[in-house]
């Protein structure tokens, strides 16, 4: 069972993502923001699904931290975002995000993306 790190400050979104992933046979690991995610990420994480705007540490800073850490860099990342600021997406891509999923997301498409990208 692949472990997928789900990072979002909204419990509703976390729950929706986790539910979709569990039903598709993945094991979700939830984190409430960037700081929490950094504490939970390790080599057993097959992929990360990550919000952009979060308290304490947002998604963009989190990506930069991950990219700078050779031990965890390279984990496939998909951003979860509202259709808002294109500059955020461009920055996320620069820091290794493979793509993004627009909220509110469709569960089947999220699962398709995770299935393809999880290592």
């Amino acid at each position, binding site marked *: 069972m692949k472990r997928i790190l789900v990072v979002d*400050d*909204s*419990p*509703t979104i976390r729950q929706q993502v986790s539910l979709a992933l569990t039903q598709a046979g993945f094991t979700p690991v939830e984190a409430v923001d960037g700081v929490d995610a950094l504490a939970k990420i390790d080599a057993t994480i097959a992929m990360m699904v990550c919000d952009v*705007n979060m308290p304490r540490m947002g998604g963009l800073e989190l990506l930069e931290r991950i990219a700078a850490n050779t031990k965890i860099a390279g984990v496939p990342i*998909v951003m979860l975002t*509202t*259709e*808002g*600021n*294109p*500059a955020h*997406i*461009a920055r996320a*891509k620069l820091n290794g995000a*493979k*793509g*993004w*999923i*627009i909220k509110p997301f*469709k569960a089947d*498409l*999220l699962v*398709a*993306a995770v*299935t*393809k*990208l999880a290592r």
Partner: protein
Amino acid sequence: MQRLLRYLVLPPEVTPFEARYLARMNRIALVFFWLHPPVFALVAVLAGTSLQVAIGLALAAMVGPMIAYYGFKNRPRVISMIYGVTAMLMGGALVFIGQGPMQIEMHFYFFVLIALLAVFGNPIVIIAAAVTVAAHHFVVWLVLPRGVFNYDASFWTVAVHAIFVVIESVAAVFVARSFFDNVIGLEKIVGARTEALDARNRDMTRILDNVAQGFVSVGLDGTIGGEWSRVLATWFGEPRAGTKLWELLYPEGDAREWMKLGFEMVADGLMPIEVTIDQLPREHRKDGRDFRIAYQPIGDTGLLVVVSDVTADLARDRAERDQRELMVVVEKAFRDRAGFAAFLREADELVASCDRPQEPDELKRRVHTLKGNSAMFGVMTVAKLCHELETNILESGAPQPELRAQLVTEWSAFHERVDRVLGATNPRGLVVDLDEYEAVLALAEHAWPARVREWGKTSSRPRLEQCADYARALAERLGKPVPEVELLDHDVRLPIDAFMPVWSAFIHAIRNMVDHGLEDAATRIAAGKPERGRLVVETTLRDGQLHLEIADDGPGIAWDRIADRARRLGLPAATAHDLEQALFTIGISTRDEVSETSGRGVGMDALRTACTALGGTTSVTSEPGRGTRITCIVPVAPRRARRASQLSQPLPVLA
């Protein structure tokens, strides 16, 4: 059988190439036939047969081709077919003339000729020859056997000759037909295919020029291909092959960036293509028209983009939605005319002030109040827009100017719609000059003080009913069991315009109750409560003060969580009073997320501010497992003071 026939008989059209080729072959063959009389004469001499018969037979055989050649100039295939017969007649003549020891060898000539006939590329020529030689042999063998054989040949000998002819003819037919198909007819085949393609292309162009939808094919990276429907050019200007789709659709702005990023993600191919295509922009607005964009993958290399003008559809949807909303609003307005008039006035001011430059916090508070008020009176379009604006302020710090402008537009449009309806349905409404009204009121108050005091007042019940409506509608929208709502007005009558800010802010209390105060059915049953939650909304007059209260029978407030958050924000959290204050303070919310309905912590503070502004207080009592009660206590202002404050506002037009 039909296929065989189609194989043997050539298609009727004769291309210029075939005509030229057959004319040349027919001319050469005629010269070739004319070589026969002298050669036959020579053979007759060598074989010792009659010279006259030889020349006579050869010349007789020449009649057919001469007539054909000069008579059917325009039908080269007919000439060739007659040549097929002629060739066999020449063969027959040679066998006849060549009687003697070499007669059997003369038969070779038939086979040479049949092979030669393949140059005409026409199976019928071969068939004509084969039939002729068969008829010739059989007849001559019957009536004049020495004309074909130099010995006493049996029927079976003739049959053996026939079999050889058939075998060669079959091969010759194949050669001729294949020669026709692949050499002579090639031009025609290519021509026909080109014509068919041209016709299809013309059809496609005609379709593309006349459909109401904009079609364009693009590569996975958004590069525009060579074909598009004309209407696209009228909407967005002429597309240019090789440019990008976003350059065509969006002259500038975030939408353009967004589509560019979307196509980058499609072209990257890292994410599944169904995901990336699904996230390409689907809506577009230009020059007052609304467009919907759909994407259809074509193979693995590109997308078909379909752009539709949905302006009319959206306008119809909007009109329907506005109409429904208006019906709800009008019903509410009739139930509480004074309240509705006050709502319109307050909202007018709020909208106007939203459009002025100001601190984000201040704007957020105004938008939040407007959202609550609009929802209270069923103006969901405005409430929704306020929510968007609020989200926008929260996320970006400053609202998009377009959203603010849209709020002004939506609100004025709504106000106009309402005025049209309420103006028309209120023919008995009376507009009185405010000074005259005051004068009359003063006179009348002098005569019947008790009665006049009641004139300016109205029952609190319609307001309470509105609260109940709102609570039930909200519960339904949130998918919660719709609560029972009990209304206790205690015959309280209030000055028409008084306490408007409190009523406006009170909606936040209702919202909090419905959103947090009611457990789901299963939890309630487990706790031994009735399945449906219960709310009590109450007005009481006590010691010259209005008590406005709402109570639920829910789980009570989670004071420990309030304490947590208060401490995190550096607020005092030691006593119950501290916590109560914290609950009302901005930023304290009992949930982690923000929903459309509540959770931003603004509402409760707005309620406290509204009450304090009128010299009142707010309080919350809560019993774990039993429920929560929010109380607002506001002094009922002396009549004169209130009227003075009213003077600055226009009189309600509603009768």
